[in-house]
């Protein structure tokens, strides 16, 4: 039957699907294949939030809480900065909330730096990392701030004053440091913070090319040796300063100042045990002078000066109580008499001849 076989083979070879039929059939089959499904759960925020919850459940809420006090270098620090804080930050939706959240983050980073510096553990790397964080958060605060319609805000003054005051704290800590690399780290971070020049009256931060083009850290050439304060740092210009003739705004500033002072008083009270008696007495004297300073302020410059000084005191008190070092307060307390003189000069110089304005209380 070989003939038959070959005949059959040959003939049957012609029987097959046409190209069209083949293509169509193939398509019909592959149409059945499921498409790649994009998981809606593969989403950074969701993953972060669930990670935080998962940590809560698995390891216990204590981990999330414990991460709260962690410092750069600790195991839980990563949890704090990349999980917990962003998740909390997500809930700050309005510009106001964003400003205050970012400001909070800035103070956290700075406090971490101070704690490390106090323990002689502020490495160059940690300093750089923290500076980067601070830069990012200040920028975010600025951005949110510019979205707000209000022209001037006392929190601006507070923020920048506190930044430069913290810079001074770090400088002091650096001086007292026994560890070379920690001293370096503290000095460079302090220089970084010093760019928020306290001598310039500040209310809003102007956009400059430097701030627009990515983190200014890159322009800083953050080197292991003491960083120079860069010329390229964003310059701060006075913008929308309340005119002293604008009595409403002025009054608002004054009452904000009063509130600030009372907050500091309360804080001081709660920290009484941690600081030594003499220190507390000196601080209180300082505060009452500031009180008078505010009372006598008639010009914007004076108000700003007040804010600067008061914030400095507040910053130093906080730092001293946290780190338990009274000597941190010496820079501000030593200058009390000088400050006092210049304050009096101000009010006598500018306000001479003018009757005292409303007490604003």
């Amino acid at each position, binding site marked *: 039957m070989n003939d038959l076989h070959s005949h059959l083979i040959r003939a*049957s070879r012609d029987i097959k699907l046409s190209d069209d039929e083949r293509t169509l059939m193939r398509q019909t089959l592959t149409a059945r294949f499921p498409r790649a499904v994009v998981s809606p759960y593969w989403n950074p925020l969701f993953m972060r939030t669930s990670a935080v919850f998962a940590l809560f459940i698995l390891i216990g809420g204590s981990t999330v809480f414990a991460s709260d006090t962690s410092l750069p270098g600790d195991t839980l620090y990563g949890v704090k900065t990349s999980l917990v804080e962003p998740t909390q930050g997500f809930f700050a939706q309005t510009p106001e909330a964003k400003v205050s959240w970012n400001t909070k983050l800035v103070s956290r980073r700075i406090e971490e730096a101070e704690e490390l510096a106090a323990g002689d553990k502020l490495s160059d790397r940690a300093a750089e990392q923290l500076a980067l964080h601070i830069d990012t958060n200040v920028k975010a605060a600025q951005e949110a701030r510019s979205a707000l319609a209000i022209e001037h805000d006392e929190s601006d003054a507070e923020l920048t004053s506190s930044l430069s005051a913290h810079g001074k704290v770090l400088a002091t800590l650096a001086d007292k440091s026994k560890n070379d690399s920690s001293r370096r780290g503290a000095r460079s971070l302090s220089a970084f913070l010093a760019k928020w020049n306290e001598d310039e009256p500040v209310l809003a931060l102007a956009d400059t090319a430097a701030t627009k083009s990515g983190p200014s850290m890159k322009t800083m050439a953050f080197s292991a040796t003491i960083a120079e304060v860069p010329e390229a740092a964003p310059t701060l210009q006075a913008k929308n300063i309340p005119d002293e003739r604008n009595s409403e705004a002025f009054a608002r500033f004054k009452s904000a100042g009063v509130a600030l002072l009372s907050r500091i008083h309360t804080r001081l009270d709660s920290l009484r045990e941690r600081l030594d008696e003499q220190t507390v007495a000196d601080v209180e004297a300082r505060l009452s002078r500031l009180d008078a300073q505010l009372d006598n302020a008639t010009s914007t410059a004076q108000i700003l000066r007040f804010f600067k000084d008061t914030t400095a005191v507040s910053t130093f008190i906080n730092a001293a109580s946290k780190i338990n070092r009274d000597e941190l307060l010496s820079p501000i307390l030593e200058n009390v008499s000088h400050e006092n003189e210049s304050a009096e000069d101000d009010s006598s110089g500018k306000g001479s001849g003018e009757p005292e304005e409303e007490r604003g209380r």
Partner: protein
Amino acid sequence: MRKNEKQLTEAFDRHADELFRHASLRLSNRDRARDLTQDAFMKTWEYLERGGEIRELRAFLFRTLKNLIIDEYRRSKSESLEALVDTDEGETIDALIPPDETNTVESAIARLDGERALALVSELPDPYREAILLRYVDGFSPKEIANVTELTENIVSVRIHRGLKKLRVLLEQTS
């Protein structure tokens, strides 16, 4: 998921034609043959998706097709009882050849002989026809045929043998 897709498309590229051919020779109906071929692949896909494993793909495909053909016969049983025995009412071999084939004189001549042979095969009772096709068209060994048809090798040989005998008879009758 991807593995199955790959397996199926490879199976299609390799075996679609011969499955179709077998189906058309069994059913003598091109359209139905096409449908059944597609169904065979579809069922194979479903089997893979359910997690089934296939050791011998070609045999699996043919077996699936075979079962579909049986279903087809049962379905058309009410239409024509002779379907199982005699395929006279089927279309000619010509109709089974796709329309886009080039028709040179040579292939026409060769096809004529083969067509006659195929036509004769179509006249065989289906059990014999199946065995003959699987053996001489699809190229399965008796053992493989047993696997595909789920019969014993013995029965397969018998069917091939009897099929050939019948073919000889038919050949003598027509020539």
